[in-house]
């Protein structure tokens, strides 16, 4: 295990150093080789760790290794260490697998981009931070890599920094994450000041002596951090704009790995959350609200990647619902399967954009208007997209069915019918928007679509291999249920037939609705937009939330301008400088006294003498 952990960190760091110092100067177009090698090494190490933990070689599935003492200060000691247990090994396995495939895909996708080297440096830096985040053994170390991931997303979203929209999206993503990190950090400080330590084992062991108020606050603040990173309701504004980045970035970070960090944090602090049922209920509610809202918006978007982005937000909401209902296994299982099929969907969208490259003239995303009838031109991509769509909507043989079904069982077990029905609605919604996209983009052409009548070509071999691999994984991931349950020490998943049938029915209903809307009435999608422009604007604006956050940011900026200009420049600065002028003015007035009029001098003498005399007489 020691060596595996060492490989986890040594490989990416050495690849980065090689890439930055060696390849950047001499052979920038070859930088992907060290990166791919390190990805392979990390995947091997993590899979090996999964096997070790699965087979029970590690006592009670937790392996810890304190590395070094980072800082000691008075009462508390901050140490860096590694902790690999069932949860982190499983997620690490999925993350490293998906990252390797997406790295491979990115080689093809970014082949002709001029800053190829810079892209891979940032990409691999993200991979390093993600790995670091998953194996951290205390909250502070997790926070360090947490912000590292945030920085990587800033750099990668703003990769094509010539475009103003990319710059704005990058900055928006980083700022929203920073707001979430504020909560995370405050929770860390709360723990530090009350318990004196932030190591998971110590914190969960001494949960008892935390006063209930602090416990409640810590749980809420941790959720705030997770909400920012996993794009939950109040802080989800950055994810749709994050599609400005290149597609491999959207695939890896904003679909499979980075956004799941929030859910991972929640899963990691499950013992703490279980102490505070109120927060759990709140998490379930927020998760449900986010997934419903995102599903509704996703079903109406025209841009390929935006639909997938909102779908990610919706699926993450579902995972949060699972966490909220205390179903840790369901959430993690869905996280893993979602990682596979969402990455697959994004990669297929990537090849579509790559294929339509000429007609898009450089736009990072393709709209449904540009696509249309692609199935004939891109058969492989269509097949993979179909598998991904089926997995996402939860059709039995594929992965989505098992994990979503488990979540629904968890929700059903809580007994609240409303929650269960709404979750079913979310399941239906997810199949609606993904199949609408499938029908619009791949099958049947519409008059409004400027689709590739002539020349869409299948993407290169290097991009096809990862797509096919991911297709296989998203098909087979369903079987991962039992081993994952064993690793997490949770109960083995059993299929409750009634719930699975209900879920299957919802999914089928969704597909039928999508088929009816897209295929039976070809131009329905464009007609209702013209009919209700108002509805279109609200949905585009996230029910008004995007403009609200933009307005808040604008108000803060205006306050800062007012503070620095009107207060600093025009009132406080001149005030202090005016002190000098008043002193000078005082001096000048005093000089007027001695203008040379002798009589006045004498007059002052007489006045002075009389005052003195008066004082003397007063004294005696």
């Amino acid at each position, binding site marked *: 295990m020691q060596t595996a952990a060492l490989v986890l960190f040594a490989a990416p760091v050495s690849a980065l150093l090689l890439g930055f110092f060696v390849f950047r100067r001499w052979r920038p177009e070859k930088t992907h080789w060290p990166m791919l090698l390190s990805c392979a090494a990390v995947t091997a190490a993590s899979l090996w760790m999964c096997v070790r933990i699965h087979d029970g070689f590690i006592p009670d599935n937790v392996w810890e290794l304190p590395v*070094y*003492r*980072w*800082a*000691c*200060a*008075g*009462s*508390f000691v901050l140490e860096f260490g590694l902790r690999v247990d069932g949860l982190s090994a499983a997620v690490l396995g999925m993350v490293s697998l998906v990252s390797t495939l997406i790295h491979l895909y990115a080689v093809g996708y970014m082949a002709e981009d001029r800053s190829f080297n810079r892209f891979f440096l940032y990409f691999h830096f993200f991979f390093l931070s993600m790995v670091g985040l998953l194996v951290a053994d205390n909250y*502070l170390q997790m*926070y*360090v*890599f*947490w*912000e*590292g991931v945030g*920085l990587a997303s*800033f750099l990668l979203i*703003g990769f094509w*920094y*010539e475009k*103003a929209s990319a*710059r704005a999206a*990058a*900055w928006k993503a*980083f*700022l929203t994450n*920073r*707001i979430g*990190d*504020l909560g995370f*950090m*405050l929770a860390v*400080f*709360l723990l*530090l*000041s009350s318990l004196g330590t932030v190591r998971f084992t110590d914190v969960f062991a001494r949960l008892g002596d935390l006063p209930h108020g602090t416990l409640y606050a810590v749980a809420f603040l941790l959720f705030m951090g997770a909400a920012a990173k996993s794009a939950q309701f109040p802080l989800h504004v950055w994810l749709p704009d994050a599609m400005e980045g290149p597609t491999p970035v959207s695939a890896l970070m904003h679909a499979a790995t980075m956004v799941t960090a929030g859910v991972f944090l929640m899963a990691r602090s499950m013992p703490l959350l279980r102490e505070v049922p109120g927060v759990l209920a709140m998490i379930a509610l927020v998760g449900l609200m986010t997934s419903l809202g995102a599903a509704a918006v996703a079903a109406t978007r025209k841009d390929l990647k935006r639909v997938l982005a909102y779908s990610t937000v919706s699926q993450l909401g579902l995972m949060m619902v699972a966490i909220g209902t205390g179903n840790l296994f369901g959430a993690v299982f869905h996280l893993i399967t979602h990682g596979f099929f969402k990455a697959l969907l994004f990669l297929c969208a990537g090849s579509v954009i790559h294929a339509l490259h000429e007609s898009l003239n450089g736009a990072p995303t393709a709209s449904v208007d540009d696509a249309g009838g692609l199935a004939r031109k891109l058969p492989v991509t269509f097949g993979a997209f179909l598998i991904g769509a089926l997995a996402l909507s939860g059709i039995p043989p594929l992965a989505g069915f098992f994990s979503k079904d488990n979540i629904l069982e968890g929700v059903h077990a809580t007994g609240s019918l409303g929650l269960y029905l709404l979750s079913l609605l979310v399941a239906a919604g997810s199949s609606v928007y993904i199949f609408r996209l499938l029908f619009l983009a791949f099958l049947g052409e519409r008059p409004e679509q400027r689709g590739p009548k002539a020349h869409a070509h299948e993407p290169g071999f290097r991009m096809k291999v990862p797509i096919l691999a991911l297709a296989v994984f998203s098909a087979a991931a369903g079987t991962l249920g039992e081993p994952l349950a064993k690793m997490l020490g949770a109960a083995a998943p059993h299929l409750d037939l009634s719930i699975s049938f209900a879920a299957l029915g919802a999914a089928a209903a969704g597909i039928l609705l999508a088929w009816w809307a897209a295929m039976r009435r070809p131009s329905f999608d464009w007609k209702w937009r013209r009919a209700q422009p108002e509805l279109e604007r609200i949905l585009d604006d996230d029910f008004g939330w995007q403009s609200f956050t933009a307005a808040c940011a604008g108000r*803060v*900026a205006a*306050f*800062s*301008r007012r*503070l*620095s*200009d009107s207060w*600093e420049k025009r009132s*406080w*600065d001149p005030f*202090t*400088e005016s002190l*000098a002028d008043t002193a000078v003015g005082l001096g000048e007035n005093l000089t007027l006294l001695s203008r040379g009029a002798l009589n006045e001098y004498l007059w002052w003498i007489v006045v002075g003498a009389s005052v003195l005399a008066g004082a003397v007489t007063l004294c005696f």
Partner: protein
Amino acid sequence: MLLTWLWLAPALAMIVVWAMPSRGLARGTALLFSLGLFAYSLWLLAPYSEGLLHLEELGVAGPLGIRYRLSVDGIALSLCWLSALLTVLSLAASWKADVPNAFWASFLGLEAALMGVFCARDLFYFYLFWDIALIPMFFIIGLWGSSGRRKASLKFVLYTFLGSLSLLIGLLALVTLHHQATGVWTWDMSALEKTPIAGRAALWTYAALALGFAVKIPVFPLHNWLPDAHTEAPAAGSVMLAGSMLKMGLFGFLRVLLPVFPDLSAAALPVLGGLGVVNILYGALCAMAQSDLKRLVAFTSVSHLGFCLVGLFSLTAAGIAGASLQMLNHGLSTGGLFLLVGMLYERAHRRGLNDFGELASRTPIFAFFFAFILLSSIGLPGLNGFVGETMCLAGMAKASLPLTALGLIGTVLAAAYGLPAFQAVFWAPAGPGSASPGLADLDLRERLILWTLVALILWLGLYPRPMLELLEPAASALAQR
């Protein structure tokens, strides 16, 4: 005599450099000497035992118990290193400037005064060096600054003199009150610790001393001199000003106020801690709205020192160690930023944010260094800024949670002023009148300077333990009181 050399050597070197016949010679000796002094200050760690290095007392007790006493503890030693290092870097950075010998001499003079302040054990010598430090900085800003230097240097001097006046009043009051209470004339800091003075008199002395130090840290209402002084000072000047002169105020709090009035400091926590938080937020908000790069960096240093203040007044070992570490970090990252802005100004003679366009593609090396040091200054974890801020706020979390939360908002605002500035200068396309086209990338000398800074930032960020162990005993000693 070890410590006396620390300030006496640069003073002598100042005279020697001033008298040098040729400018090249003066520049060379100044740089070599500052390197030597830096090595010497590092070597000073060897005899450094637990707690104080050692008490150097020379001569006989003068009138009113004044005696030439020097001593240095972990915090003071680290600040000496910082000033020595920053002098080396600023001298190296202004290598190409065509300036007379006096320029190099005044830097050495400034270094001498700073060393004096950090090592002084006797309040009288502390005050003496405190005021001497002002003179070279006045010349640096006044003679070699940019366009508005007259007003800025005058404002700087008037503000700081006001501060040192209040400091003098405070010191005199302290000593006389101490004499009345104990009948002993003494200026020695360790003797004055936990003075038996109490009641209104102690309050007024505390207020006077605090005002004197607050002007130097620039606490919120008294900070007007900082942006002007920085925008008008030459690059090397603002590195020294931000890097080590601002620390004199904090060092004063640390060395004089906390040990002498422990109970009052505890009582002053909400006031001064609150002011620290106001400093953080005010600095960050003003930085967000600046269009001049140097003024932006000046306001960031106001925000960083707010963290130090918060850490200091948490009166916990973690807080104080964090504050002293944050002083070092601020010296490195803001010093680095000023060096970078100086290099930019050296090439383009312009500092506006929107004067430059896609520098990332034109000067990639410069972009890398600027990004790295900017990230360290907005507190990206893994770099040094984060360590300092976390320790300060963790210390304050014990004392009062609302202040910690407000402080944390400061870190969010840090991202809000840091990244847009970075994007405007490096990512945004070059505007019509921008100065980007003709810019040359960094040459070897500049790269060397910046690599040392990057190395230090990374070392303090990833493995701050050795430095913390140096600061730890002094901090916990203060906290226990």
